[in-house]
């Protein structure tokens, strides 16, 4: 089985995050592998291992798109267990919105499937920076693949995929056949951590560097120029400040109701 997992290098949400520059794009200092992508990688590794792993010819390729530093998301994925990596990087990609990103990633996935077809594209449910969750569905549309998004359970039996998609009103069982695109939620598994052996093994794994020319995409189709949306203004919200803090002396519940009444919230 040949699986491509999309991984994104995103600003660490533990720190303050900022929008910068004329395009109001995300400042990528202090970045890490997007937490939500770890679930997709874990799902890929479990599928590969259940089929005998790399020894049996299964492949898990971690693909990222982004500036030089984004390769760290691929390196981390290799340490966790991906078999190889690919890093699409080109100055013209800067400022890409979801449409431009999905266009470039679709071309990169086609490139990775040129020698042997890709059976499954796995992604997280959203990036933890842009958070639009548009890219998985747009990739399915562009690649003509069945789309199984927001899967909280996934089973692949031969060519048949069975997944569960939890909505507010109902939980659906969804079926599709390979090749397909699946995005997974944080409910699907417990991602593993890289171990010492994995960290050493990662150094020998191959990372393919890709440019727009390699994947046959014109610079005008991507980046700020090729994006279909523009962020026109960005304003930092003033940080919330602490209000009144009291210690319960036996009547805090009543004081709470006094506060709600004063705020006209009762």
């Amino acid at each position, binding site marked *: 089985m040949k699986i491509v997992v999309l991984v994104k290098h995103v600003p660490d949400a533990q720190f303050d995050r900022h929008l910068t520059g004329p395009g109001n794009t995300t400042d990528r200092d202090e970045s890490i592998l997007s937490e939500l992508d770890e679930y997709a990688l874990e799902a890929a590794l479990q599928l590969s291992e259940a089929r005998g792993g790399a020894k049996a010819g299964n492949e898990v390729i971690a693909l990222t798109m982004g500036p030089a530093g984004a390769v760290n998301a691929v390196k981390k994925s290799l340490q966790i267990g991906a078999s190889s990596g690919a890093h699409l990087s080109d100055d013209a990609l800067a400022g890409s919105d979801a449409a431009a990103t999905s266009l470039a990633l679709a071309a990169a996935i086609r490139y990775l499937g040129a020698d042997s077809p890709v059976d499954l594209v796995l992604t997280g449910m959203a990036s933890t920076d842009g958070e639009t969750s548009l890219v998985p569905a747009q990739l399915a549309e562009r690649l003509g693949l*069945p789309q199984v998004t927001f899967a909280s359970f996934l089973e692949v039996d031969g060519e048949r995929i069975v997944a569960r*998609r939890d909505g507010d009103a109902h939980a*659906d069982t969804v079926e599709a056949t390979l090749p397909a695109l699946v995005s997974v939620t944080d409910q699907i598994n417990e991602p593993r951590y890289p171990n010492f052996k994995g960290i050493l093994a990662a150094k020998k794994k191959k990372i393919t560097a890709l440019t727009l020319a390699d994947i046959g995409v014109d610079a005008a189709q991507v980046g700020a120029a090729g994006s279909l949306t523009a962020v*026109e203004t960005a304003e930092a*919200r003033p940080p919330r400040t602490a209000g009144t*803090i009291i210690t319960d002396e036996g009547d805090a519940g009543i004081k709470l109701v006094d506060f709600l009444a004063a705020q006209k919230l009762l």
Partner: protein
Amino acid sequence: MAKALVFIDNPGAALKKSSLELLTIARSLGEAAVAVNGELRDDVVGALGANGASAVYRPSATDLDDYLVAPKAAYLAAAVEASGAGTVLLENTADGKDIAARLGVKLTAGVITDVVGVDADGTAHKSVLAGSYTTTAKARTAVAVLTVKPNSVDVEAPAAAATPEVVTIDVPADATANAARVTGRAQKPVSGRPELTEARIVVAGGRGVDGNFEPLEELADALGGALGASRAATDAGWIGHDYQVGQTGKTVSPQLYISAGISGAIQQKAGMQTSKVIVAINKDAESPIFEIADFGIIGDLFKVVPQATEEIKKRRG
């Protein structure tokens, strides 16, 4: 005149508040039209007209719910073309965003998600990076696709009702070709409380509730609010994942958020810090939640919460 098309998936017997909100926005952008999927009752057509819809589109196929989003996007693309709409408005749900995403590719249209306001010129307002920035964004294309969060506008009635023309749109023959099939559907129990993302008041519990959400449920019911939870509480299995507020759960922005036994790590804050008023109850005075609380109580939630519930009931007689 500019036209805005609202997508309503399975309108059912009566229009939901979120649909009326989308119609209110559509009218502020120009002429409003609606594309529905699923059963379309005559009285619903009437209600859509009363809310200013000049046309109602429906698909030629009745089996779109048997597939995951793809054929709905194909149908909606055809409806956009038939209507000549310049803006498409959808709910900001998982399905709404997935349909919007595919529609964007089909029509080469810019898609903006998590919208909380739309100006008359189509500029969309949203909150990003866990509420730390507010941005405005605009589609650079002939058609703009916006997914709008609930409670973004006050529902208004139009100056004049319309008598909508009902038009059937042919669903493209290949719409279901590569679509995943929905083969089973389990309805979830209905709580009777307001929907979490739409509620005016949310009462949420975390690790500190130690498996017992009962006091919080009673407070939520006394206030007519929704129940929420932190990831620690849902991961512990004390309450369903549907209740999770946070980065990987739901983002809420109610008038009042009462946080009990939640430390307030970034994962939780990301989902609730745009709430109007935040009340926090926690035993640990060092909890980060107190940094963003308008009213904080250092104390035992099992004493404070029931006392507050009793006091509310008493004051209401």
